[in-house]
């Protein structure tokens, strides 16, 4: 069963096309990461999925319901983390717990306090007086205590240091381990997602590439070689991306090392010491999407 289904989604904002004919699915039990450069519409997509924006065309289904008219019973099954860890800043920790406890029938106060007490703050501490990291912990406690079936996290890593990011990953990992839980996550910290997701959706200029993490990491390659000249591969069909630092050139491709070597030869590029390098997800992201 698919928890999220997007069919032929089109969206425009101020005359600019954000998506055109975008389609993908997120199956139940998967951890799907949405990756894209700044301004590619990741948050817009989350807002459409949560019914806060009406797309100009296409259809989005979340837990089988039209995202634009999500009934309360479906929203009850979705834990949503807004970009910037939105929380009611006029509330204290205790008031936040009391407020959400009355909203969600499956609320688990122990989960909330287990996460929040790690900060060592009093329940009288006001959310508005917290650091970004502390606030993120409260928001994480809120969405976890809801015991949702689907978690949607919009750039959870924004403003968080390595410790808080690692804590998020630990909690999300445990959540996914419960079985039957689905996570849809966007983040700017690509290397964090490498430790979490099993499926990725790359979004670039309104188009997407959906792939499994292991498939991507095994089929997409990073090669390096040396060349004294300045190179420019432009929109190459074999080389998805390239970087140059001095005479050290890195190229990314779905092709094998032999095919890349042949291709470089056919382009008349002189190369020395061509070798395949270990590639991180962040390398793959840059290689596929480019830097700018």
């Amino acid at each position, binding site marked *: 069963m698919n928890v999220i289904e997007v069919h032929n989604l089109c969206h425009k904002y101020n005359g600019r096309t954000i998506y055109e004919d975008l389609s993908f699915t997120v199956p139940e039990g998967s951890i799907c990461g949405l990756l894209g450069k700044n301004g590619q519409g990741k948050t817009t997509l989350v807002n459409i999925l949560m019914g*806060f924006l*009406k797309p100009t065309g296409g259809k989005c289904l979340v837990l089988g319901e039209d995202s634009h008219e999500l009934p309360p019973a479906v929203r009850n099954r979705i834990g949503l983390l807004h970009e910037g860890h*939105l929380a009611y800043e006029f509330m204290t920790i205790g008031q936040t717990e009391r407020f959400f406890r009355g909203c969600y029938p499956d609320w688990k106060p122990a989960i909330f306090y287990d996460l929040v007490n790690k900060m060592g703050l009093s329940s009288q501490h006001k959310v508005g007086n917290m650091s970004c990291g502390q606030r993120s912990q409260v928001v994480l406690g809120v969405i976890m205590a809801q015991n949702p079936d689907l978690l949607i996290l919009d750039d959870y890593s924004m403003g968080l240091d390595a410790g808080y990011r690692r804590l998020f990953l630990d909690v999300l990992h445990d959540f996914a381990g419960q079985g039957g839980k689905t996570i849809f996550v966007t983040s700017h910290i690509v290397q964090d997602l490498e430790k979490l997701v099993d499926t990725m959706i790359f979004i670039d200029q309104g188009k997407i590439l959906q792939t499994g993490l292991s498939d991507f990491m095994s089929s997409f390659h990073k090669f390096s070689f040396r060349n004294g000249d300045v190179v420019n591969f432009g929109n190459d069909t074999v080389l998805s991306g390239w970087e140059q630092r001095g005479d050290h050139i890195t190229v990314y491709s779905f092709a094998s090392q032999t095919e890349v070597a042949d291709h470089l030869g056919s382009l008349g590029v002189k190369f020395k010491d061509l070798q395949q390098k270990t590639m991180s997800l962040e390398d793959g992201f840059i290689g596929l999407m480019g830097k700018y």
Partner: protein
Amino acid sequence: MLSSLLLKEWLKLRIFFAALLLLNFAVCVKIFFDIRQQMHSEHAEMVWYQVIHIHTIPYTAIMYMPLATGLIFAAAQFVPEMLGRRMRISLHLPTGRNRMLVACLFTGLLLYLAVCCMDSGLVFLMLRTYFPMEVAWSSIPTIAPWIIAGLLSYCGTVTVLLEIAWPRRIFLLLVFSTLCLVLFSGTGYGWFTPALWYLVGLFPLALLSVFESGRRFQQQGAK
């Protein structure tokens, strides 16, 4: 769910409620001292002539208090929701949008009416102390348009804050401002009484504008 929503609104409003209750009380006390001083410094016939014959209302100091109270309550409730578009937190709760808004409006209007009841009651008691009962009773229809103006300022502020498009915001601002101005345009005791019940009957229309702006915010407010 309902108790949670009421709790949230109370947490936002309680300081403003206490402050406005105190401020309104202080204005009522000032009115009392003004009337008392007038009674002591002038002949009773002169005071009677001014208050009864030339319709010099002795409690005009309170005229704009309901308007300001409604405006402040609306801002106290909805400005925190609009900052960073935090209203999306409430809109994601497992309850209907209109039900959530009703809980917000109910809390705000209940506290607003509590302040207005205190004002009306104190003015009534003050007038009863120094004037015949008829004068005290006449304060109710005299104050009523000011209270309705406060209700409109409350609904208008909420509607404008929730509205996402600037042209609509300006239009709504003009509409609600004009309606409020009309309610302050007359003078004398109970000048609005013939139209009062029609206005009370039409007040729910102002509430509808809040729900429409709420709908528009949910569907397009994340831009």
